[in-house]
């Protein structure tokens, strides 16, 4: 390939962009749906817009080393702004767009942000809400002019003004940008991503061009990604996964990123684009499957029969066919028929007809869920990584897929397991440092240069890494048996009716659980049975719903019995929470992971009730609504005992 010759010099993102603009200037780099029509930017156009943005920033006084906060949904100009900041030696700092103003405040202060680029009026309002507490803030730029007519504050600018200014600046100083890009070095920080803060205050993770380009190139070579891939960019830009897949890999390979029209249209956009390379957290795959199952229940009898018939074939041999293993001729024939009648149309509806490689990560995926997608012919694989490692540690090689592992160490990455079971990694993709936190950096990277992931894992006989839990979460029951809460919760969450589960058991004599039902799936189930309900709290308290959930948990107990060390972790008692766990109430992180400690503290009364043998417990909880107001939800929660199975060879 021609660009390989100059690969030596392509060691920063701005240089990669300039190269694409030359090598494949007319090829689409970004698309976004606007007014119902997909608009396209070629690499050449992207480079021109980045130039205008960067020159505009320079004109406004943006300097080498400055942090530039970016807040908004995935839009082409947001991605372009990242490169624009990088061109000048600045550091883009994407923030979660659904964070409330006060959550943003910490990061904006910590990073001493002078420039903020936001998507729209909503985000401008958030910044204005905390503006008095941001003494360093100098310029607030926005992308979407809608509703902005009456904002006359002098430091708020339309991005179009900035670009117009940039174009003039570029005419007057034509070499400035080229010079700035030439000054950039591959070990400069290319992006700063804040960790979601499951533990303590968020920390700014500083990653270099070299780290992200190594991770992106390693992953792209591993899966033979080409410039012809299409990817849908819909996950938060502040998340390392999106930065790797939608930004770094696109920049490295030159493929096309597609931005959805709005957060609500992602499903439709997915269908229209038909990505060839797709990334989604398990939650998305789970929601899709739940929707499919709900719709199948409503389908005609013939369709249902056909679906179940061919799904049985797929379960039996679909994954094996995908992995190229031997399968009987009859099953091959049946699978081919199934592909025509069921899998093909289903993949089409899901927008997955063209997928070559799909990845999931971020949380453990239920084996049955994973198997479902692979069995209908979608090459879904798992990977493992953190913000600190550019989301790049382990990848599952094609044809060597194990449902309970995250694959082998990725090219260029060294992985080893510490004595306490913690996974340690080393390689070019490691973070440079935590921003202004040398103490945390020293704590996270040991003397040998290994990063301590905080996850507990084991290598199996084939060299595949298996993640058990967070190292600090793995505990012991009162009788000394191993207790891995996430592992149990993930088993529970695989049921479509259970949206969230929190189990307790560390240092206790038995395991108990809080359950959040999935209002969509359970609501549908209740409708079908003519059970009337007024909302989440009411539905969650129905005895029929308790019965339904009880069956699910008892099934998990049966499974746990068969898993040796974990047989003691069978769940003895449970309750269904009266409200959904919500990031707005600090119960989940923005990436929707349960904040175990916080939940345990907030609902201490309920935990007491679970362990003291009571049959019900009254609770009143303050909840925050989306508009920031507060309300109260109160309920008398029922607690139920569960059937557990006696462990063989031990007196019951």
């Amino acid at each position, binding site marked *: 390939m021609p660009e390989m010759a100059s690969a030596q010099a392509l060691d920063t993102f701005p240089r990669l962009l300039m190269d694409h603009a030359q090598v494949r200037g007319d090829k689409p780099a970004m698309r976004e*749906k*606007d*007014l*119902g*029509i997909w608009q396209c930017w070629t690499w050449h156009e992207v480079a021109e817009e980045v130039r205008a943005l960067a020159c505009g920033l320079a004109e406004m006084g943006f300097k080498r080393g400055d942090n530039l906060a970016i807040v908004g949904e995935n839009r082409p100009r947001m991605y372009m702004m990242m490169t624009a900041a990088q061109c000048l030696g600045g550091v883009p700092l994407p923030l979660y767009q659904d964070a409330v103003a006060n959550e943003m405040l910490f990061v904006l202060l910590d990073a001493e942000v002078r420039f903020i680029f936001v998507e729209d009026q909503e985000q401008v309002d958030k910044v204005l809400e905390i503006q008095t507490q941001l003494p360093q803030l100098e310029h607030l730029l926005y992308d979407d002019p809608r*509703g902005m*007519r*009456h904002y006359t504050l002098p430091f708020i600018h339309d991005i179009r003004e900035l670009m117009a200014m940039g174009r003039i600046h570029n005419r007057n100083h034509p070499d400035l940008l080229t010079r700035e890009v030439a000054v950039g070095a591959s070990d400069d920080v290319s992006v700063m991503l804040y960790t979601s803060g499951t533990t303590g205050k968020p920390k700014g993770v500083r990653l270099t061009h070299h780290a992200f380009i190594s991770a992106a190139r390693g992953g792209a070579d591993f899966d033979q990604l080409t410039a012809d891939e299409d990817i849908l960019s819909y996950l938060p830009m502040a998340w390392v996964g999106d930065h790797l897949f939608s930004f770094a890999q696109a920049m490295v390979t030159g493929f096309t990123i597609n931005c959805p*029209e*709005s957060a*609500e*249209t992602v499903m*439709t956009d997915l269908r229209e684009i038909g990505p060839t390379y797709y990334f989604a957290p398990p939650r998305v795959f789970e929601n899709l499957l739940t929707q499919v199952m709900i719709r199948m229940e409503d389908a005609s009898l013939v369709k249902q029969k056909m679906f179940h018939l061919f799904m049985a074939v797929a379960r039996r041999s679909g994954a094996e066919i995908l992995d190229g293993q031997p399968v009987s001729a009859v099953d091959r024939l049946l699978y081919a028929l199934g592909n025509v009648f069921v899998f093909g149309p289903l993949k089409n509806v899901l927008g997955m007809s063209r997928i070559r490689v799909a990845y999931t990560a971020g949380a453990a995926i239920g084996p049955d869920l994973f198997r479902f997608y692979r069995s209908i012919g979608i090459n879904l694989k798992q990977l493992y990584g953190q913000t600190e490692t550019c989301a790049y540690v382990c990848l599952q090689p094609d044809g060597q897929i194990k449902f309970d592992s995250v694959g082998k160490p990725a090219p260029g990455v060294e992985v080893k397991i510490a004595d306490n079971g913690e996974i340690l990694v080393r390689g070019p993709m490691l973070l440079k440092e935590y921003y202004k936190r040398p103490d945390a950096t020293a704590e996270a990277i040991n003397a040998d240069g290994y990063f301590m992931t905080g996850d507990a894992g084991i290598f199996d006989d084939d060299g595949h890494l298996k993640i058990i839990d967070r190292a600090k979460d793995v505990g012991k029951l009162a009788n000394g048996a191993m207790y891995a809460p996430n592992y149990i919760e993930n088993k529970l969450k695989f049921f479509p009716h259970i949206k969230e589960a929190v189990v307790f058991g560390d240092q206790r004599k038995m395991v108990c659980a809080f359950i959040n039902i999935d209002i969509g799936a359970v609501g549908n189930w209740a409708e079908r049975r003519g059970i009337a309900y007024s909302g989440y709290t009411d539905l969650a308290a129905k005895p029929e719903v308790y019965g339904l959930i009880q069956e699910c948990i008892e099934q998990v107990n049966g499974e746990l019995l068969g898993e040796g060390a974990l047989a003691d972790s069978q769940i003895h008692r449970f309750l269904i929470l009266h409200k959904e766990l919500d990031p707005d109430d600090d119960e989940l992180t923005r990436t929707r992971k349960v904040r175990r400690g916080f939940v345990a503290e907030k609902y201490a009364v309920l935990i007491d009730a679970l362990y003291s043998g009571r049959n019900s417990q009254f609770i009143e909880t303050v909840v925050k*609504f*989306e*508009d920031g107001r507060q309300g109260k939800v109160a309920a008398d929660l029922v607690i139920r005992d569960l059937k557990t199975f006696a462990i063989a060879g031990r007196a019951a």
Partner: protein
Amino acid sequence: MSRQIGEVILDLKNVSLAFGGVKALTDISFDVREHEIRAIIGPNGAGKSSMLNVINGVYRPQQGEIILRGQHFSKMNPFKAAKAGISRTFQNIALFKGMNVIDNLMTGRNLKIRSNLIQQAFWWGPARREELAHRAKVEQVIDFLEIQHIRKTPVGRLPYGLQKRVDLGRALAMEPSILLLDEPMAGMNVEEKQDMCRFILDVNDQFGTTIVLIEHDMAVVMDISDRVVVLDYGRKIGDGDPDEVRASPEVISAYLGASH
């Protein structure tokens, strides 16, 4: 504010309307100025919807006249009203339930379509170009109201709050100069109401559309309207800016019941 309230654009003079012996409206006069948000409030049965129906010609008043941009109409009818740039939404949503959102909004463009049935059936040449232009306008409305995700959903399958929004969308697709809204927020939850308020203010602000609305939620009315007319049993008992109306003893007694 860049929005400048202009001259009187719609003037109602001594309007009376009766159904048989029932007097729905008695001798009502009020005016609407260009670019303003004018609210009509009153208890149930006060004649609010009748008033709106008189303005766009669904009901024909026995007495009185309507002056629209200096033009006198003693006999208004819905077609004339629409031609004159008045569009409306309905208290009980009147959309085509089996049609999708785009098609419903396209019906709002009906008056502006020039090609005839046969040309449209063949969808060729000018007819096709024209439809594309109208569709582009409809897409702008969709973008404005943030309903991209339901573009192709049949309206009957949408929740009530969204149907209301589509109803507003159809009225906007006409590019009206005067928009009549009949209880745009009835039956909505707080969040939906907030959204709807924002849309109404945005329409008024961005397109300069004059808005006449009926609403029961007092907080909303007092917040967003420039002037308020109060009706009670078909009579006008108050007229003025929100603060004046709120302070008027007659209005208080009609709403809260007088202490006799």
